[in-house]
């Protein structure tokens, strides 16, 4: 039983960051219909920013986090402006391939600049875990969960309560009509990509110190993000959040009770199962963003 409780705790912590990754991608995928292969790179980027800011510039850990988010936002906007906007109107696979090219180039750039040796970020949290009866959880991970939750709430408010969010939702529903109603679709696209990217960078900035930082770290994260998007439905933030936790739960229980080798397969098996039985995702009201 205590093992099960431990899995549950692990799942909560992991689920929060998976949710962040998923939300970012579902926004981009849902609103812009771009298969964003740079999502994993933004995750990696966020982590490396933490490393640079904390270790090489000596900035406080808690200040470094918002810096990483902002950096992710800027990089996302830059990618959208230079690579996606000129290709507006092209096929989905052309933009996808451009994203792949950018992914290859940026990941190799990270390898070139920082080398392949993993880096770690020291955190101000105590190493000894918080012990609650039979389960343990590290302070750092609790902080990550809290920070992720806060970011999720902020994003939710942004999408549902602001004018920008309203414009984004309108564009998702019907781009042409939104444009006719005066929405600057170009601006929305750039904002969407930037926000989505900043969330990926945030996930990386939070998880980088939990794990270690190396150039290929985003690859697995990106794949899981795709799984979460499927689970939750394109463009559905609530779905992405719940999907993130479901994926984390499936991984924990799958690795713990079925087979550790197939841990990362859990996500994929879920995807396939969902798509066989409920192709629009688990949450039927998936036609709207928010």
């Amino acid at each position, binding site marked *: 039983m*205590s*093992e099960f409780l*431990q*899995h549950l705790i*692990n799942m909560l912590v*992991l689920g929060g960051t998976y949710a962040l990754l998923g939300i970012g991608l579902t926004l981009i995928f849902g609103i812009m219909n771009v298969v964003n292969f740079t999502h994993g790179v933004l995750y990696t980027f966020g982590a490396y920013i933490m490393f640079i800011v904390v270790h*090489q510039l000596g900035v406080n850990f808690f200040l470094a986090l918002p810096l990483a988010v902002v950096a992710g936002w800027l990089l996302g906007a830059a990618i959208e402006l230079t690579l996606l906007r000129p290709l507006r109107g092209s096929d989905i696979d052309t933009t996808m391939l451009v994203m792949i090219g950018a992914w290859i180039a940026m990941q*190799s750039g990270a*390898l070139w*600049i*920082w*080398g*392949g*040796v*993993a880096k*770690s970020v020291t955190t101000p949290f105590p*190493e*000894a*875990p918080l*012990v609650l009866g039979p389960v*343990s*959880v*590290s302070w750092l*991970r609790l902080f990550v969960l809290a920070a992720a939750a806060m970011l999720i709430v902020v994003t939710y408010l942004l999408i549902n309560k602001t004018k920008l969010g309203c414009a984004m939702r309108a564009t998702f529903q019907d781009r042409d009509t939104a444009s006719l109603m005066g929405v600057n679709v170009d601006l929305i696209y750039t904002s969407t990509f930037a926000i989505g990217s900043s969330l990926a960078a945030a996930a990386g900035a939070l998880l980088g110190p939990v*794990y*270690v930082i*190396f*150039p*290929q*770290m985003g*690859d*697995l994260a990106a794949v899981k993000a795709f799984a979460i998007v499927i689970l939750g439905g394109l463009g559905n933030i609530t779905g992405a959040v719940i999907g993130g936790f479901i994926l984390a739960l499936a*991984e*924990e*229980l*799958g*690795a*713990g*009770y079925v087979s*550790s*080798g197939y*841990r*990362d397969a859990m996500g994929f098996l879920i995807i396939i199962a969902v798509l066989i039985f409920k192709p629009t995702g688990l949450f039927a009201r998936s036609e709207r963003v928010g």
Partner: protein
Amino acid sequence: MNSVRLENHMIRTFRLVPTIALAVALLGGAAYAQTIKIGVNEPLTGAFAASGTYVVNGAKIAADEINAKGGILGKKLELVIEDNKSNPTEAAAVAEKLITSDKVPVLMGAWGSSLTLAVMPKLMEYETPMVVETSSSGKITTTGNPYIFRISPPSAIEAAAFKGIVDKLELKKVDFLVINNDWGRGTAEDFSKMMKEKGITVGAVETMDQGAQDMSAQLSKLKGTDSETIIVTTAVDQLTLIFKQAAALGLKKRIITTGGSQNPDQIIAQAGAAANGTMHLTTFLPWFPDKTPNPEATNYFIAEWKKRGFDFAGCTESFRGYDGIRTAAAAIEKAGKAEPAAIKAALWDINIKGLNGDIVFRKSGPEGKESGQSQPNVYLIEITDGKIGMKTL
């Protein structure tokens, strides 16, 4: 840290110069016979980039040392270094290029077992020997390829070396947590066999995917078993994560790592207090040069490594590149000429003092087409209070 980056930048940029010169020479059709070449087939990009780079840097130290002492057979030693991109298809293509285009008479490579396995058919095809410096899969020396000469230990040899230590540690029941590739699974298999012979119970065998970063699920499961020891086999990045996550879960069992890719310094730096109490089966002792079989050479190697500004943590992998090149060079000297067949024959006759033991090749594999396998030493170290010490038994 900055100077390392700059240095790596410079090294990589300046590699352009000799490679362009080489290309020009090849294109010019001139038989550039003034140097003796050894081909180096290592992963410099892709998943294994960090390790491959360490090995290559160790190899360069060996090459420079040899050249400073007058080269081989009176000629300069030239390393032809190529990146196999951590990909078996590329490893085979690179071997093809080194042998047929660059005309190297002997190679060193290819780091990972599947990379080495992909190269092996090419060695047979072109009858060129290769010194295997890191790969650990048993298959490499047992499938009948007489062009393979391995200086790193397969897990069977590691298990045999560990046999002597096992009694003193009083192991009763053991779990395994291994990386899900040939190295990890091979270790679990060979060590399990050895332990069962000694009457030790083998409990759970958990695996983790090569790219996995969260082993909490596996560790939570192992926390609940009744074994007192966990044997862990994987590379330094995952080891760091395992120790941190184990500590966070309150897992208090004895942990012994194997495989020789541990980089304890990096683990201490990144896992901190979580690393205390862990033991490691390594093949090299850069921290205690006097305990190595060849203290003078160890000191020289470490001094050179530090002089070049490389990360000290990389010593536990780079020494293989050093030993590998010295092995190949010794064989060329003995053969008297830079020709594959002669070098292959000479490799059976060499006996040099490697950094972690004598390098002498014994026959391994099916009769008539044996590969060469050397038997390096294995040491048990322990991390206590952030410091590395030999485990006294």
